[in-house]
């Protein structure tokens, strides 16, 4: 069997690793482009698993037009100052209910006028939070006429 004989004769050649950096760079660039660094430091306890589960979820589109409101228990190191009751966080600071109105106006002022109707407010709320505070937030949003909202939720598996 000539076929097999020929195979045996061939000396094994080491794989050239010259293109390895190129491959690695390619992957590197991919990750660099897709990475979204977390802009806000959360001062409340809110991981992904703390969000409620839902099946009828939609992707939040146009991230630049989304303003976030976080609600949850303050983290351990803030509990001495802020207690353990759920608090609101806007940007990277704790806020009061009355701050929401101005926050929305400020967010709106940053955007182009034509884009304002498409602005969405994403509510990231811990699932154990009582509805009282959420209802109050919703009222504030209505006052600021930020009517498009999105209850942040995880895909139920």
């Amino acid at each position: 069997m000539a076929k097999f004989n020929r195979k045996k004769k061939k000396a094994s050649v080491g794989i050239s690793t010259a293109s390895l950096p190129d491959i690695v760079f390619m992957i590197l660039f991919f990750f660099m482009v897709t990475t979204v660094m977390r802009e806000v430091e959360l001062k409340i306890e809110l991981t992904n698993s703390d969000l409620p589960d839902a099946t009828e979820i939609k992707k939040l589109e146009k991230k630049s037009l989304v303003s976030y409101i976080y609600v949850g228990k303050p983290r351990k190191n803030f509990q001495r100052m802020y207690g353990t009751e759920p608090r609101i966080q806007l940007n990277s600071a704790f806020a009061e209910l009355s701050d929401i109105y101005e926050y929305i106006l400020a967010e709106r002022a940053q955007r182009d006028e034509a884009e304002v109707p498409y602005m969405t407010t994403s509510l990231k709320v811990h699932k154990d939070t009582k509805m009282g505070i959420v209802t109050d937030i919703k009222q504030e949003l209505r006052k600021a006429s930020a009517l498009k909202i999105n209850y942040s939720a995880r895909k139920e598996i």
Partner: protein
Amino acid sequence: MAKREVGEINAGSMADIAFLLLIFFLVTTTMDVDTGIARQLPPIPEKKDITDIEINKRNVFIVLINAQDRLLVNGKLMNVEDLREKAIEFIKSDPNNPNLPELEEVKIDGINKPVYVGKGVISLQNDRGTTYGRYIEVQNELVAAYNILRDEAAMEYFGKEKYDKLDEKQQEAVRKIYPQRISEAEPKNVGGKK
């Protein structure tokens, strides 16, 4: 001035550097996309005195969630698991059942035959003590009911399996058949503590 010979830079460690950076970005990357239930809040009414709109009792589907996270649907206790089915039955309605919402004959662009559209409104009311998780669960069930019916309508009228697969105009027609009418009442504090 003697010219120094410029030696070639050793590129052997290039791969290591690249790997280092790669690992850094791998670790910091968060791939998760923000998802959630999209809702529209009602605008605040201009006038202070709001007159209650008379709605026939059969046309409302009242969902109450109390501070203990329990559900009362049209005066009866219910489990969240059964809510979707009940909501579908209500939204769809049935001309032979006097307890389900009235139907209205509507002409819709893009659909040749007249369509019967239910007049039902879902009224959702929660307590200040209701947990957010339960509230979202209920919202999700109600939205799911609408989505199931819309998918059904998409199949029936346009022969597509999913509402999302229809084009803009067809989606609008389906939305007219099953308009999402979930009204949220002003909150009440009946469950005691906040």
